[in-house]
């Protein structure tokens, strides 16, 4: 198992955002976490990614206990995350965006030599940009990209750090159905090609059913179901959670 979430609980004041959530992700899998609004999906991601420290429970990544390890260290261990709200570097070009992501793995990164060495990473950034169809936009400022292009750029940034595990927080949010289909296929293809494990939060059922190997369902901070997409689709508890008055 590349990721093990072990009985994680997280509170915000009086609000129990996560209660004893556990699951495990095998290497190379595409694992989706779904649930109605407020189910705790983003909180779960933030705990896994090191942004929050849980009150109880542990997170194991690639064999190590990484509970509470800060995001920058987690990233160096091979965990990359995209954000739900597009979070790129707005005033610099697309190419520069990906460059700064790719160069973080350069040997001089974090050392004194980085003060004067320039890092050539175009051989890493070019294939990524091409894979996501952004090669033609490489000189455009990130803030001038369309919404869908920015979401792709987000993923490029995460991938440029050569992760083992990719956390995608609603990658198709705000995309048109056409873009969503494209994005879904792209994510699946890239994951396969690079031997990536993907942990996905999604709202859009078609995306989830289309690419997931396994699905976990959260409701009010608790995991209420886990299984293959088929099993989840037919699980009465899941149907109840989505239809039983919870907003979508």
């Amino acid at each position, binding site marked *: 198992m590349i990721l093990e979430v072990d009985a994680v609980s997280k509170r915000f004041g009086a609000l129990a955002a996560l209660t004893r959530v556990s699951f495990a992700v095998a290497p190379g899998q595409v694992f989706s976490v779904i649930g109605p609004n407020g189910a705790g999906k983003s909180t779960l991601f933030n705990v896994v*990614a090191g942004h929050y420290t849980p009150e109880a429970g542990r997170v194991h990544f690639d064999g190590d206990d990484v509970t509470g390890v*800060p*995001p*920058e*260290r987690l*990233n*160096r261990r091979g965990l*990359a*995350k995209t*954000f739900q709200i597009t*979070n*790129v*570097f*707005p*005033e*610099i*070009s697309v190419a*520069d965006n990906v*460059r*700064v*992501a790719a*160069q*973080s*793995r*350069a040997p*001089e*990164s*974090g050392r004194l030599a*980085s*003060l*004067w*060495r*320039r*890092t050539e990473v175009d051989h890493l950034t070019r294939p990524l940009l091409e894979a996501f169809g952004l090669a033609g936009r490489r000189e455009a400022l990130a803030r001038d990209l369309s919404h869908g292009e920015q979401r792709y750029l987000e993923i490029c*940034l*995460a991938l*440029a*750090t050569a992760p083992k595990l990719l956390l995608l927080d609603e990658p198709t949010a705000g995309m048109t159905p056409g873009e969503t289909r494209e994005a879904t296929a792209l994510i699946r293809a890239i994951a396969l090609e690079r031997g990536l494990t993907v942990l996905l939060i999604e709202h859009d059922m078609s995306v989830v059913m289309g690419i997931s190997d396994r699905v976990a369902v959260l409701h009010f901070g608790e995991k209420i179901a886990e299984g293959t997409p088929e099993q989840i689709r037919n699980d009465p508890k899941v149907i109840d959670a989505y239809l039983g008055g919870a907003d979508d």
Partner: protein
Amino acid sequence: MRVLGWRAVVVFALLAALPLVPGMSRYYLLLAFDALLFGAIAMSLDLLMGYTGLVSFGHAAFYGLGAYATAILLERGVQSVWACLAFAVVVVGLYALVVAYFATARRGIYFALLTLIFAEVVYTFFRYTQTFGGSDGIQGLPDATILPGVPLDTPLKKYYLVFVYLLAAYAVCRVVVASHFGRVLVAIRENEDRARFLGYNVARYKMGACMISAILTGIGGGIYPMRSAFATPDLMLWTESGEFIISVMIGGLGTLVGPVVGGVFFTLLRDKVSSFVDWYFIVIGLVLVVIVLFMPRGLLGYRKVLGFSQWRASG
């Protein structure tokens, strides 16, 4: 690696030739000294403000501390320029280390507030400590010497001192900005959280930027008493910090060259307007407000060099 493009070479050549211009009286040479010094400091502040996105409201403390470091040595008969500046680097470096440690731990706003608070404390300390001359500071200093027995006593020699300083500071800034490190600074300015999630220890980069900027400024401060023959607490006033900020804003954030121009422009302006001392601060305040509202990119901002493209372009 080409650090100075042809445009920069031309400008520096012109600056080097400036004293040869007919009519370059002692007064004007010293004014040029002040302008270049101010411009260099504004440029080093730009490293922090324009490239990393951190506003330092206490930059004057780095400047003033450097001045006092030199003054203390000169007062005791240690006149070597090298010794004085080395001492300034050590003093300002230590202070900057402490400030940066606290100020870069959290969000950018902490940086602005803490640099201000630290600077006020430093000012208060020097203003009210008699060992350092209190409000009068340290006065009547001898000239510094470039080599034993070779004093920097004429305005011409002093001018070339600051010229070399500006050249060196510019080279350092250019290298840093174009480097791996510089790229990360811009990323931090653009989106600190994202930079963190890409594996960068953001606090450490901010500290690095702060220390480089502070030390460059501290060297500039160390040079000041070699021209003025004194160091006073007023060099550390927050109003002085405001003047650095305004120079950066006038010239253009994130351009390095802009703030130099802004600093020069501001020094010349201040020289002309000094008779209107009464309204001086209101004008500064209004200029800041107007620039932010209507001309946020400053004079040179239209060149749009906020990205990394400059490390491929020349000058």
